């Protein structure tokens, strides 16, 4: 009895400790991220005042905006002021859009999530089976094919692939819609609520918009999916190869287990690693889809941050980076948690 009590409080304490560690890690990561981004923004040889007022502004307008931005204060003070604002939930105003940055992100982030989710779905649904298959049939003709496909996905610039995709499937074959999230004709009839076109269309029963959006989404989604698939195939294949070379696999085969069961065994053991890979590739799509967003005129966060960085629009860059950073940290924590569920070792350690 006493032992179980002790055990209980032990695990509770461990749980609390983990939570504390996770939370402080989160806060520290975001703080570090803000600090580094802030510094980069100050080192970039761009004059943020010029970006706002333009080349032709009279001297007094320049001076006023310089003071408004707090640029006359020492760097550490500017940073502290910024932190103070952020702590109150105010990310400031973007100089490029004249909107509150939080509002901007609420408008741009859903577009990115749409792409990233589609890309990851395609990547996982195709990449995992192909990777496993390729490992099981190592060095067969099929394996070689899969590896070439993955290599191409890894090495061709997505920018080029996007344009070619548009040329073939949109301009020539007319199978899919062109760039943008929806056709211009729907631009002013869509009811906006969640920011996700798909959800908004479903909520309001605007099925033609729903279809039109899918038609717009499929090409960039498939492209990002291809990129993410290429990565997932490579990782799955190498994880599986590692497992299939282990002694327990040999033992299982000697014991006469069917090949299917053996592969399932091995696969279960790579699941934890695989989840981390998938989470990371999803996180990567959140901020790494800049070129796809450019080619497809997809108003997403990657494009927003890149544009803002070039213009030294620091409020926008900092807020954008924080959102991406937070997503990374959360996804990491999430995949760790999932990993614990699927990883046989951590499972046995707990029992």
């Amino acid at each position, binding site marked *: 009895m006493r032992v179980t009590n002790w055990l209980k409080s032990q695990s509770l304490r461990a749980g609390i400790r983990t939570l504390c560690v996770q939370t402080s890690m989160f806060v520290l990561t975001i703080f570090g991220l803000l600090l580094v981004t802030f510094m980069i923004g100050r080192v970039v040889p761009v004059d943020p005042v010029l970006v706002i007022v333009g080349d032709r502004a*009279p001297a007094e307008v320049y001076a*006023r905006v310089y003071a408004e931005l707090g640029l006359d204060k020492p760097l550490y003070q500017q940073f502290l002021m910024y932190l103070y604002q952020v702590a109150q939930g105010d990310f400031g105003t973007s100089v*490029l859009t*004249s909107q509150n940055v939080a509002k901007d992100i609420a408008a741009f982030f859903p577009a990115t999530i749409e792409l990233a989710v589609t890309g990851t779905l395609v990547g996982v649904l195709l990449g995992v089976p192909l990777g496993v298959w390729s490992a099981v049939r190592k060095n067969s003709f099929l394996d070689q094919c899969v590896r070439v496909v993955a290599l191409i996905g890894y090495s061709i610039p997505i920018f080029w692939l996007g344009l070619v995709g548009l040329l073939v499937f949109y*301009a020539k074959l007319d199978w*899919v819609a062109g760039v*943008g999230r929806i056709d*211009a004709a729907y631009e002013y009839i869509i009811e906006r609520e969640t920011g996700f076109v798909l959800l908004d269309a479903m909520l309001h029963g605007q099925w033609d918009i729903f279809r039109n959006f899918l038609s717009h989404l499929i090409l960039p989604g498939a492209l990002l999916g291809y990129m993410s698939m290429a990565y997932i195939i490579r990782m799955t294949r190498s994880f599986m190869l590692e497992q299939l070379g282990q002694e327990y696999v040999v033992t299982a085969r000697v014991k006469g287990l069917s090949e299917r069961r053996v592969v399932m065994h091995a696969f279960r053991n790579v699941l934890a690693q695989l989840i981390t890979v998938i989470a990371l590739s999803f996180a990567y799509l959140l901020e790494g889809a800049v070129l796809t967003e450019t080619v497809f005129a997809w*108003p997403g966060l990657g494009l927003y941050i890149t544009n803002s960085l070039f213009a030294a629009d620091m409020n926008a860059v900092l807020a954008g980076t924080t959102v991406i950073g937070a997503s990374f940290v959360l996804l990491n924590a999430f995949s760790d948690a999932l990993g614990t569920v699927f990883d046989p070792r951590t499972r046995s350690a707990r029992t």
Partner: protein
Amino acid sequence: MNVMRWKQALGAAVAAAVLGGAGPALAATPADTLVMARKIDDIKSLDPAEVFEWGSGEIINNLYVRLMTYDPHDFSKLVGGAVASWQVSDDGLTYELKIRKGLKFQSGRPLTARDAEYSLRRVIHLAKTPVFIFQQLGWNKDNVAEMVRALDDETLVLKVAKPYSPSLVMSCLSAGVASVVDSEEVRKHEQDGDYGYNWLKTRSAGAGAYRLTTWKPKDAVVMESNPDFYLGPPALKRFIVRHIPEPSAQRLLLQAGDVDIARDLGPDQIKASRSNPDLRVDVFKKVNTYYVGLNTKNEILANPKVWEAFRWLIDYEGMANSFLDGYFAVHQSFLTGDMGLEEKPYRLDVEKAKKLLAEAGYPNGFSLDFLVANPSPFPDIAQSMQATFAQAGIKLNLVLRDQAQVLATYRSRGHEMAFARWSPDYLDPHSTAEFFVRNPDNSDASTNKSAAWRNAWDIPELSAMTEKAMLERDPEVRKQIYREEQKVVQKDSPMIMMFQLIESTVSRKDTSGFTPGPGFDTAVFWNTRKVK
């Protein structure tokens, strides 16, 4: 196993949704709607007191009526916009403007001289970037109530500090800051003395051909026609400008009929569009010029012989006829149109340049950093120059930077040699002359950042001449002064004028009437129509 099954099911569902859903795209834009593809990520605000960017400049030209405007069929003719007629007093200090009758705001209110008074004063009080256009008339926060006054609903009286050339004053009234806003509507949204700025920067309250429905930053501007527009209701009910950053994507959309006009196609794409039977290429000459600035703080670049040698080392025609075809035209003076010089005395002549360099004391050449912005086609121009300069022994190190960085460096005299562009603020020659040939204070601390100052070109006499031209009331004499100045800049200055911008607008064959005009903010939408 369960996980796998679930995934399979999900996969099937997604595949079904995608296959079932992905019908073909709409074949064309609706007949009453115009969709224009353009790079519009420079729009920061739509408040006419602040707008000074390309993307927003032309939008507000169609949301508001300016006091003065240009005849869209002949942009050299300055005509009344909200102003029906005007009179200048004999001393040249007072302007009496009569406001056109029958103008109506989108709210239904009539536009009066009171609205004009409010709009002009508002620009001075808000003091955003383009305020200098009015400041140069001698208006400031303290005196604007005196200088800008509505006598009644119909009469607006403007006073100016000096007897400026009337064409200069009236041209200033054709700038974006001279847009008339609905004073009643804007006053309703004033907060803490902001003159309604925070409200108006994302909305419209004008009497222009269109009114703003939505502006989604870096995505789209949607406008709806104003049936009460004074030049007649616009032919198209809706006008949508979509942000398509990638020129190749613009071209694909245009070919497929998903947009009606594409604005940012590159030289290759323009050439390809000419042979497409569905498309039409319209060419408009702009007032924008491109030039090389030589910082005379550098000892070598202070030598006029070197300036001249450089002028013979550029393959103007070669570039204009190849990769700049349909994009830039050779132009070697700072003004364009009938105010500019026709003469183009310079062409590539390496031998002449070598001789000049030897006379200057550099027979073996030297090396220089050449600052260039990285959007196409600037790097191509820089490379061409690098090749031709090398023939005379001059090594140009290309420093390719983002546009914002180039501007910051050039504006602080941080360059040796820079490729720069100029876009006039309003369509009076003074705007440009002031930039190229006025440098009242050549010290590093100067608040005047004209091109002459940036290149440390100390020109007290020319500066005085520019100021004199501002006051010259005889148009012929004024024109002569600018010709003189242009000749000096052309032959004997550290600024090498090279090209004039040509805007090639590519549209679907059924679309007509769109006119970008010569300026950055002169585009006219109301006449655009589609004929099946």
